[in-house]
């Protein structure tokens, strides 16, 4: 299969632009909070470069103390990131154009926004490594620069929610959601996911609601599944 690598990369990079802008105040804020908790500039940089998981980094930095309680931090990270298991399982079948050895590297960059836009891409085209690099490269560098600058110079915006930056990710995900409509069964999936997520968020501390909502949607999809008269083309793309 041949494709124009440069145009694929540019398509990915322009798709990730809204997320790259929205993440700037959060990167600055995370960097600043990290140094307030006693991390050095180098430590902030190494964390962003090796972990690359914004929500987990925010949760962990809030719990940080010196000396760092590594086991507690590891368990917290696991809890916040457990949703990635579902996300990776879903993306796995769409990495046909990726070399087997490239797949573990590919998923290193599977932050929420990158994953969501890669999934969205598969609704209209096959996912190429160049497109994925266009998504992941700019967002990764952006995250490194923003967290480092926040650590070095402090944060420009104390409460990003005042300016609606917190809602920007919700808006991005709403926009991407419109690309995942597969008919009436999707309505059932969305209803189950939002219901379960809201109920669990209301009752249980922590990020369990994402896993609960994800699994609830999958269960509904299993229940609603009917054998198609012909092979539905979606999974085979």
């Amino acid at each position, binding site marked *: 299969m041949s494709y124009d690598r440069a145009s694929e990369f540019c398509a990915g990079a322009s798709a990730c632009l809204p997320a790259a802008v929205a993440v700037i105040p959060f990167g600055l804020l995370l960097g600043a909070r990290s140094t307030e908790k006693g991390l*050095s500039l180098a430590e902030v940089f190494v964390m962003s470069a090796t972990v690359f998981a914004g929500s987990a980094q925010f949760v962990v930095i809030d719990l940080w103390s010196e000396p760092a309680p590594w086991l507690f931090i590891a368990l917290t990270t696991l809890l916040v990131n457990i949703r*990635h298991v579902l996300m990776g399982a879903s993306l796995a079948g769409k990495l046909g154009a990726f070399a087997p050895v490239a797949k573990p590297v590919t998923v290193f960059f599977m932050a929420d926004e990158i994953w969501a836009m890669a999934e969205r891409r598969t609704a209209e085209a096959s996912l190429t490594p160049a497109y994925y690099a266009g998504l992941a490269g700019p967002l990764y560098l952006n995250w490194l620069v923003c967290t480092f600058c926040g650590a070095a110079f402090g944060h420009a915006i104390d409460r990003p929610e005042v300016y609606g930056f917190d809602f920007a990710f919700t808006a991005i995900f709403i926009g991407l959601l419109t690309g995942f409509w597969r008919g009436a069964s999707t309505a059932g999936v969305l209803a189950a996911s939002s219901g379960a997520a*809201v109920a669990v968020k209301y009752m249980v501390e922590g990020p369990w609601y994402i896993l609960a909502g994800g699994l609830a949607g999958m269960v509904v999809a299993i229940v609603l599944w009917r054998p198609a008269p012909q092979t539905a083309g979606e999974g085979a793309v």
Partner: protein
Amino acid sequence: MSMDPATLMAIAAMAVVTWCTRVAGLWLVRYVPLTGRGAAALEAVPAAVLMSVIAPMVFLTGPAETIAAAITLFAAFRLPLMAAVIVGVGAVVALRLLLG
């Protein structure tokens, strides 16, 4: 520029755990039948996970966020993503000022 051993240990633990959660799905699907109900479950993941991520913001935060989410959805069917996001963020800022 200092690097504290306990801090590096914690960061390394975070990095390993995060990568493991991201790679686990690749390994797990080898044991899921990729036809019929197994495929249907996997196909539901993007919508189910995205809906779950945004559900608390949309339904549990307040009327400003709920209304702004509806406006964003409306805009998303008509505009490119970037424009829909700008409309949504503008709506939430205005509604928070009006209603908050």
